[in-house]
Structures are given as structure tokens and as C-alpha cells.
């Protein structure tokens, strides 16, 4: 564990990523304390430029404070990113583990399902799901989890396939350990590094996906997310650059921080380094 931390924190990018991410988390959690009136309060005329009195980041098409919107937007992005990744990893690990460990028909069925998801255009499927479930935080999370779990399942299945023929797993079988115990106590801990890496990368891509959905107007209308801020200002882009540029930068910085962390995890956990 200590070794891992040393390796993990050794790279400057990882440190930067962690610091930036921590700052974003703090801002997101502290938003209701900093701005108790919420992100929708109209504070002035629309499209005031950054630097206008009391508006360091300007106002949007409805005269709402961009800065408050950016900070509240972090809540949506992080929530969606983390919640959908958790769901996705949960489903993916469970099904991938079962398929990889037992193989045979279970595996065949699972592979066909992931194949289906691979063949259907994922983003279109996501739009369909969200539109039909009615756009909301819930449908966004469910939708993203639904289109991403096969990716996790494939990774987990692959790991389980490789690990189940390892001799310590065969030894465990001979010792009379139950399948459940073997799956969760013997194999899963060894399969964790790639899952952690995939998971950390998925948070970032889920944030990107959420922003894309919101951009197209398929986000929760009761929340001010970065994507919806850009989508709502599309036509304002020509007269008020800050309405689109700033939320985009926010997304980029967040995802970049997450990817730095994911990359650091990958380096620290990758078997090549471990050996």
C-alpha cells in the first residue's frame, strides 16, 4: 500500500490532477454554503461581460451569474460521473465476473449482449433511452450506466478468464472453497487494478457524455450543468463568448484532472511496474 502511494504520487501530473480534483470537489460540496440562493437566481441583465460589477464571470442569457452556474455545474458533473460509474462498474463487475469465472453458456450470452451494445451506436442509444425515460438526473445516470457497463464487463471477464486458470485459483478449488469465496476473495482482489483504472477513466468520460446530452437539450432541466450552459448559449456564442467558453473549460479541466489521476493509477498499478 505504501509502495503504491509512493509510486502513485511520484508523478507531478498525478499530484496536479489530485489537487485540482480536490478543489473542484470542495467547491461543489461548498456551493450551497457559498451561494445559498442557488444557481438559477437572476442577478442582472443578460449577457453582461465578465468583470461587470459583482459578476467576475459575467451573466448568461437569462441574467444569471455564470460563476455560480459554473460552481453548481460541478455538482451535476461529479454526481453524474461518479454515480453512473458506480452503477456501471457494479453491473459490469458482477456480470463480467460470473461470465469470466463460469464461462460456457453464461459467458456466451453475456458476450452476445456486449456485442449488441458494440454494434448499436452507443450515443444514439443513449439519446433514445434518455429521451424516452424523460430527461432527468436519474435517466442520465441510468442511461450512461447502461451503455458503459459492457465495457467494464469485458475487462472484468478478461481478467477473470486469465486469473481463473491461475494455479492459486485451482488450489482454492481443491481446498474446497466456495465459488462465491473464490470469485470475491481470491480473484476479484487481483482483478482490481484494471477495474480501478477503467473506473477512474470512466468518471471522466461519463462527465463528457453528460455534458454532451445536456448540450443537446437532453439533460435535467432543473439543474444547471456545464453542458446545458453551453447548449443554452449556442446562439449567444457570437455575441457573448464567455457563455460557451467558460463552461467548456470547466469540463476540460475536470476531465483532465480525472484522467491525470487515472493515468497515475494505471502507472502505479500496472503489472509491468509491479514486477
Amino acid at each position, binding site marked *: 500500500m505504501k509502495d503504491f502511494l509512493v509510486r502513485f504520487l511520484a508523478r507531478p501530473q498525478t499530484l496536479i490532477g489530485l489537487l485540482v480534483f480536490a478543489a473542484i470537489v470542495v467547491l461543489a460540496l461548498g456551493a450551497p454554503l457559498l451561494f445559498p440562493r442557488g444557481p*438559477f*437566481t*437572476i442577478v442582472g*441583465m*443578460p*449577457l453582461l461581460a465578465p468583470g461587470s460589477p459583482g459578476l467576475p464571470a459575467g451573466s448568461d*442569457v*437569462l*441574467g444569471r451569474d455564470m460563476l455560480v452556474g459554473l460552481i453548481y455545474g460541478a455538482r451535476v458533473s461529479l454526481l453524474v460521473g461518479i454515480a453512473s460509474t458506480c452503477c456501471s462498474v457494479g453491473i459490469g463487475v458482477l456480470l463480467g465476473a460470473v461470465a469470466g469465472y463460469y464461462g460456457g453458456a453464461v459467458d456466451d450470452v453475456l458476450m452476445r449482449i456486449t456485442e449488441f451494445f458494440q454494434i448499436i451506436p452507443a450515443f444514439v442509444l443513449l439519446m433514445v433511452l434518455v*429521451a424516452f425515460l*424523460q*430527461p*432527468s438526473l436519474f435517466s442520465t445516470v441510468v442511461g450512461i450506466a447502461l451503455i458503459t457497463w459492457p465495457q467494464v464487463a469485458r475487462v472484468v471477464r478478461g481478467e477473470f478468464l486469465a486469473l481463473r486458470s491461475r494455479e492459486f485459483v485451482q488450489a482454492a478449488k481443491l481446498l474446497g472453497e466456495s465459488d462465491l469465496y473464490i470469485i470475491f476473495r481470491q480473484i476479484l482482489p487481483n482483478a482490481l487494478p484494471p477495474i480501478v483504472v477503467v473506473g477512474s477513466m470512466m468518471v471522466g468520460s461519463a462527465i463528457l457524455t453528460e455534458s454532451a446530452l445536456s448540450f443537446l*437539450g*437532453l*439533460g*435535467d*432541466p*432543473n439543474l444547471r450543468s456545464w453542458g*446545458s450552459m453551453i*447548449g*443554452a*448559449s*449556442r*446562439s*449567444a*456564442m*457570437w*455575441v*457573448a*463568448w464567455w457563455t460557451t467558453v467558460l463552461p467548456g473549460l470547466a469540463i476540460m479541466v475536470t476531465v483532465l484532472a480525472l484522467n491525470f489521476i487515472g493515468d497515475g493509477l494505471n502507472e502505479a498499478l500496472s503489472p509491468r511496474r509491479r514486477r
Partner: protein
Amino acid sequence: MVGGMALAPFLSGHAAAGGRNVLNAMMPAEPATLCYPLLNTRLVQEICANINEPLLLLDWDFKPRPNLAKSFTATPDGLAYTFHLQPGVRWHDGVPFTARDVVFSCDKMLRQLNPRSRNAFNHCQSIRALDPLTVEFRLHTPFNAFILSLMASNAPMMPAHIYDGSDYRTNPHNFAPIGTGPFKFARWERGQYIRLTRNRDYWRAGWPRIDDIYFRVCPTPEQRMVALETGAVDIAFADDIDSVVTKRLRANPDIVTTTRGYEAVGEIAVMEMNQRRWPFSDRRFRQAFMHAIDRDFIVKAINFGEGKVATGPIPSNVPYYDPKVLTRYPFDPARARAMLDAMGLKKKRGGVRHRFTFLLIPDGGGVQTRAAQYVRQAASEVGLDIELQSSDWATFGRRTGNWDFDMDNNSYGEYGDPAIGTSRFYVSSNILKGVPQTNIQGYRNAQVDTLFARAASAVDPGETQDCYSRLQQILTRDVAMVWLYERDPLLFYNRRVHDAVTGPNGPTDGMGRAWLTGVA
């Protein structure tokens, strides 16, 4: 500043390519069909108005002007109208236009396909051709909006020899329409443009004055603004341009901006409440709600100063509007709170009096959505917690039609006479489960039903005015609907375009008279 930059040379107009007399018009999406009666959306109207003409046009005073009908007479009891058609009119395929076409269009095709036309022609007992150039309409009961119902989009003339006896919905001419209008359909390049070309045999001498009209697809709002600014497109219609950039376009000396041309539509942006449910069923709640929202702000900030606050069910720039009788609801949150307290809707934990949902009309995050977001914020100031729900057209139509909503936003057009466009949202006979764009609020008032019926059938214009004044009094007192603002849609066109708008029907009268400078 980004916005102030001049646009690149490659973006500049190619409109006058080859010195031809070509008008480029904007089309935000491709229409589903070019069969006018089949889908009477504004987009189809803008294109098809150049192809399929009505019997009459409307002048600026809302008085009929001859068109395919060179004159008409009405009996004093208001029960019979006789139209005399222009002689020598031919369809684009050369077949002569006759009374048979009028009878077919009004009695069969439009009545069957178009709900708005059906509303008018259902008043008819018979529609008969007296001779090849004379048609007689006989009504069951007097209907004083009858002549207005024959205008523009309500009653385009369709060719009987093409459609009669065919399956209207699958007729191949739905994609290559035939009409009598100043322009003929020429080509539909999918994903790019629809081209109409000059009808050289047009019955009205000297028209049209343009060789070709291209309707060009510009799907995103950014693209539409750029296209207009660069002159790639000469004319943009209502709703094509996001109000965010109107100020910028108004400042552009090459572009003419006008609110004229949509008077006959008389559109009002509204919010509807499901009045079957409490507390929307309580008049005090609806009144308090009106006080809680700053409609001036909506006009000023959200609509960037375009349009004006709606005072009641009838827009202020059309006949029968009566400002004297209206109950007005100025922005007064304190009063709204007091009224809500008084009706027993007290604050509960968290300062919330009542929670309800709001179904958003799918306008792609445009003005209506922004207005709803503002209303959500304003309502929260008086303790009403609104949850917005996005929708697509399927969801919107299904849920409003099935009365499965608390509140929604919408807009309706008056179409020249309250009997045509307005009454349908307030009369109890139009409460139809499963059908959107009807009286989905479930507003019921027997007095209102009677007054609308009387107003439409009165022969004496004074009596009609009386009825509508009383209606405006009752409906505004009741807050029968949340009226937000009169839309006054904007028409943008390049300076080189002239006579683009010739009457209150604006683009729905077609571009027959329009001409371009800089072209011989």
C-alpha cells in the same frame, strides 16, 4: 470582442450567382411534406404559400382582398356566400382552375385533413359549384369569421385532378406540389434546399418578379444567424433567429428587421394549467400566480425587448381587443404571497407551499424554455416549487392530450378572429381527451361557452364586439390561462429584398410581389 468581427469573405453571399434573380430563404428544418393541408405547420406554410393560393387575401385592416376569387357576395342573414373566380387561371400542369377545385378543396380535402379548416367548413351545410367560375357556400348558422377562415393557410386551393380519389397521404405530388401560385415547385435537394421557380403563366400580370426561390436548410441557430449576416440567405422567418442575437442583427445596416407580417397570426405565449387538479382549479391560485411572475422582465430580458406583455386572451393588435374591461395582474410577489396565504396554501417545511411539475414545450432550449426557467425561479420566491420536465413532441403531445400534467407552456395564434384561433382553448366542447392543442386545461365556464357561440354567429358586428368584451372581462378575471406575452415574431430580410410583406398574413401570402434590387 468576438461578435463584432467582420465575417470572412468566403462567407459572403453568393445569392446573386450568375446575376440571376434569386431569393434565398431560410428553412430551419426540412418539412415532412409539401402537401399544404396535410401538415399545416409554419414551415410548410412559408413554402407552400407560394404554390397553393387561397381565394382571398387580407389587407392591413383585416379586410378581404380578391385573389383567386375576384369577388364575393354574402346574404344579409350571413347564411350564404357566393364566390366568383378569376377566369383563365391554370394549375402549374396546365389544367384550368375551376369551381370544381374549390369545392373539392373546401368540402373534401381540407375538411378531411386540416383541423383548422375543418373548424370553418363544418359550419357549411353545402358547398356547390354553380358554374365553372362560381361557388356557393351555405351555412347552417351564421359564422361571422367565415371570410377570414378562407385566408391563407386555412384554405389553400388544391388541385382536384391530382388529389381527388387518391390517398392524400401517399400521393406522390406531396413532394412535388401542383398549385396555381406565382411559383412552381422545381427541385428538392434533400438536406440542402427546396427550389421554387417562376410560374411564367401566372394569372396576375407582372408577377412574380423573382426567378427562383431557394429554401435553404439551416438546422442550427448559430448557422442561421451567420447565414443571414453574410447574405447567404436573404430572408429569415419568425422563430428562425434566436432572440439572443436580435440586437446584433438590428444593428446591422444590411438587414431589415420588422414585426409586421404576423398580425393575422396574433400569437400569444402562454402557460397552461391543468385546472382539474388543485390548486390550479382555484381561481385565487391562478391570480396569485399571475402576480408572482414579472412578465415585463420576460419581455425585456428573456425576449430581449421583442413583443409585449399579454393582457388577456386576445392580442392587442387585432380586432375585438378591448383594453377597458381587462383585469390586470401587475408583478407583485407580496400580494401573491398574501393571496396564497389567504387561500390556505401556507408555507410548509423548507418554505415550500406546494410542489408541482411543469412540462416544457420542446423548443430546443429557446425562449419558451428560458421563460419557464425564469418562471420556476419567480415561483420559488413565493414558495412554489416547480420541477421542470423536458419533453419531445411525442411526450408533449401525449401528456398534454391525456391531461397528464400540472402546468406546461405553449402558444396559440388567433388567426384573425377569436372564433378561429382563440375559442378552441376556452370552450368546454373542445375538451377532448387524447388530443393535444385543445382545451387541455379543462377550463369550463357555461357563460364563456355561450358567449363564444354568440360572438361567432352574431350578424351584427356590434354584438360580436360586446360578446368578446365580456369574454375578455370574464377570462381575465378568471385567469383562464397564464398569458405571458404577445409574440410579435420578427421577420429579417436583406436590404435588397422589397415588398416581402404585403399584408398581415406576411410570408403566408407568398412572395409573388417581392422584388430584389441590384438585379435588372
